[in-house]
Every structure is written in structure tokens, then in C-alpha cells.
């Protein structure tokens, strides 16, 4: 147990010192993998090059609120209502949290 703790502390220190690689692993986390599906329409990292809205950098609460509003129909949509109905609260939270870090 103690060893695990030490190990974790070293990692945090190393990552913080070098300011890298955390994103690498984060991108293959569940939230990151799910969010990559958003990028097909909204651009890599949620930065849209065209007429689609960009979706990066929103505080997670706002993104979660919007996705849930699409899901329950209180926010009108062309297609996002049909997508949001496929996700649970937990999945919405994971994606919103990841998108907020971009």
C-alpha cells in the first residue's frame, strides 16, 4: 500500500515537472475515447474548421447541461437530440470533463 502511494507520488511529480505525457494517457481514457467520436463532426480536439460549432474548453457543468438539454428535448437541435439520447449521465460527465481540458 505504502509502495503504491510512493509510486503515484513520483509519477505526479515527474509529470508535473516535465509538464508532459498526462494528455497522452488521458486521450485513451474512457472519456477521451468516447469524445473522439465528437471530433468527426466538430473537428479534432473539438475545434471546428467550418460551420459546425466548436465544443472545446467549455466548463464541464455547461457542457453537461447542454447535452442533457438536448437529450430531454428542452434545447432544440437538428441532430444532437438524436445523439444525446444514446448516452447515460455518467458518459455525458466523462465526455464533458474531457472536452473541458482541451
Amino acid at each position, binding site marked *: 500500500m505504502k509502495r503504491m502511494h510512493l509510486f503515484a507520488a513520483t509519477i505526479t511529480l515527474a509529470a508535473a515537472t516535465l509538464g508532459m*505525457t498526462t494528455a*497522452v494517457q488521458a486521450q485513451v481514457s474512457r472519456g477521451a475515447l*468516447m469524445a*473522439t*467520436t465528437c471530433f468527426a463532426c466538430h473537428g*479534432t480536439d473539438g475545434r471546428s474548421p467550418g460551420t459546425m460549432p466548436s465544443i472545446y474548453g467549455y466548463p464541464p457543468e455547461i457542457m453537461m447541461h447542454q447535452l442533457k438539454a438536448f437529450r430531454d428535448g428542452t434545447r432544440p437541435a437538428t441532430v444532437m437530440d438524436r445523439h444525446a*439520447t444514446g448516452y447515460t449521465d455518467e458518459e455525458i460527465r466523462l465526455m464533458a470533463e474531457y472536452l473541458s*481540458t482541451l
Partner: protein
Amino acid sequence: MDFKMNRRDFIRAVGAGGAAAALSACGTAPQGPRRRTDVVVIGGGPGGATAAKYLRRFDPGLQVTLVEPAATYYTCFASNWVLGGMIGMDDIAQTYGALQDQHGVRVVQERVVAIEADARRVRLAGGESLPYTKLVVAPGMEFRYDTVEGYGPGVEGDIPHAWKAGEQTRILRDQLRAMEDGGVFVIVPPGNPYRCPPGPYERASLVAHYFKAEKPRSKVLILDRKEGFSKQGLFMDGWRKYYGDMIEWVPASGGGLVDHIDARTREVFTESGFTRHRADVLNVIPSQKAGRIAQEAGLTDDSGWCPVDQLTFRSRVDGDIYVIGDSSIAGAMPKSGHSANTQGKTAAAAIVREMSGEDMLALSTVNTCYSLVAPDYGISVAAVYRYQDGEIAKVPGSGGLSAADAPDYVRRLEARYAQGWYDSITDDSWG
């Protein structure tokens, strides 16, 4: 945000020496040096390009080589917009510069002629061999020429399929331009399953759009071997609204099943050859199977497509090979550029996680297929997919079609988003 690091990331973070020192301070030793790993990707369509890009994003330490014979890839998506005269060929051209320069993918302009799975290497047309640790196979689809008698590779120059974009798109566009007013454009769509289920019907729509403006006495005739098609109600509503009776769709039971064609006279024979239709421009889209290299490597089953573990897209035939895009059997997902893009990311994540000894995460992903009925009239079909009980299934209650009674401004918005979708997915795959 998940903050979780595995040993490999950790080693990368602090440098191998530092890691060893840090680890021995904790009383744990690394399990040997990290092996150099190589992934080879066959095919630079949306499947292969996305896989290559995301492999490097997920693990910048990986060496990734993409093999694709063409220097320029023309997207099939938006190729119907070219036929409708809305955009030019340059607007659907994608290249591999960003993959190479920004994402560190090695791009080899070559064709793979053999997969030597036992030796874990691929052989290129030029004679060179590339070894791999993991191989991603994304060669798209190949035609089954046995479905419409009289149609084959030899006549494609006169009777284009235009189902692989590029030269074929150009041929069909030029034939439509050269056609006299009052002519008949005949489309023969493929049998299921095939690349882009709504594609033939978007094609009919946008050619009618072109005819309406330039050749208003002309007709579009669809001779179908099926009894129905994707977004049928939405398409037909739009056809009535914009094109009156210019487009005629004939299902198999109504005499649409094509028996054979005469390529020289552009005649199409249906109902066991008893009914003859004369086309001024003829577009035969044969039924399909997995890309040739996948067939030759034995990655296909009796259906002609490649069975995979639908969680990871690992081939059921060879554990070091992943098959994505049109070639793969992906449960409920349609054969689309959007699906290929998503599957590229899924296989990339599966490979990276496997290489660091982690299990694959359950997939949850979306597909949206936009179609234009007219330049400012867009419709879509969407779905969310989940890996469940061994296959990819639609999440109940999610997805569906654009509303049948949507007002015009919604159709206009969806048309704008169709363009936005194109800009985003091409950027996400090749940018």
C-alpha cells in the same frame, strides 16, 4: 480527467534512466527495456488515415507507416456534390502532407501486394518489405462483378460506377454535362450491404438538381434490386417538392431488378431480360465485398467481408491484424466514411492499450450520414452505437431520421451542417 499512467508513459515522462532510478527507489524494477514497435497501416482513406493519425496522438512513441498508392485521395463523400455542379474536383481532394509533417506518420506511396502474416511483414509492389508488430488493414471495398451481367472492369471507362471517387467521378460528371436535354440518366444501385446506403439516392437528387437548371426535359431513372432504401420517405418528399416527377424509382418487385446490360448501346434489361431501358448516361454500381488485399490475405469469411472482434477491430483470423472501414463486419454500423473514421480511432486505442498491457475500453460511438436533396435542403440519419454482448449494436431510443415535418429552415441548417461535417471529418482524418 482521468489521471492514470502506465509504466511506459512513466518511463517516457522521466526518461528511461530516471525511471529506473525512481523505480528502484520504490523497490520496483522495470520489466526490461521497451521494445521498438511498428504499426503499418494499409490504405489512406478515412479509415487508415484516421488510424495512423490517432495512433501517433495516443502514443507519440510509436512508429507508424501508412501505405497508400495515390498521392491524392478523392473523397467519395461530397462527390455527388461534384456531379450536381455545386463544387469542383479540387474541393474533394485530400493529401497526406499533414499526416507526415504534423503527426509524424511515415507515408509510403506504394501498393501492398501481399500480407505475409507468418513473417509479420507486408510486401510492396516495388519489391520492398515492411515489417510490422501490428497491422491495420483499411483497403475499402472491391466490386462483385458477377451481379450485373455485361458489366466489368473493361467497360468502366464508358459506364462509370463512380463509387470510388476520382477519375470515375470526372467521367460521370463529363458524361452528364455532354448529355442532351431530354436524355435519361439511369442509376443501377447495388445490393446490400454496400458503401454509403443513401449514396445512390443523393446522387439521383443532385443530378436532378443539375438537370432542373440546365436540362429540364431530362429524367433520372433508378432501377433497384432492393425493395426500399435509406431515408426513403425523406428523399421522396424532397424529390416531389423540388423535382416533380423527374426522378423515378423502380423497386425490384416493380421491375427494377437488372438482369444484364449492353455496354455498347447503353441498354439495360430488367425482368429476366424482357424489358429494355435505353440510357443516355448509365451509372452501374455493382454489389461489393472487402478490398482485394483483404480477400487475398484470407481475412474474409463467406460473406466476402472481414470478421473482427467488434470491441477492438482485431481480425478473427489473425491476432496481430486489425481490419477497419468498409472491409470490416462492424455489427449495426453502416459502411460510411464516418464509421471508418471512428473505427480508425477505436483500433488505434485498442492497439495502444494492448501494447501497454491494458484491456480495451467498451466502445460507444456515433454515426451521422447527411445527404443533400438539393443544395439548401439537407436530411440526415444518425445513431449511437455500443459494444454489447459481443457485437456493435444501436443504443435503443437513440438516433433516427430528420423529422418528416421539419420546416424549411431546419433542412437549410442540415445542408449547412453537411458542408460543416465534410470540413470537420476531412480535417479529423487527414488534417
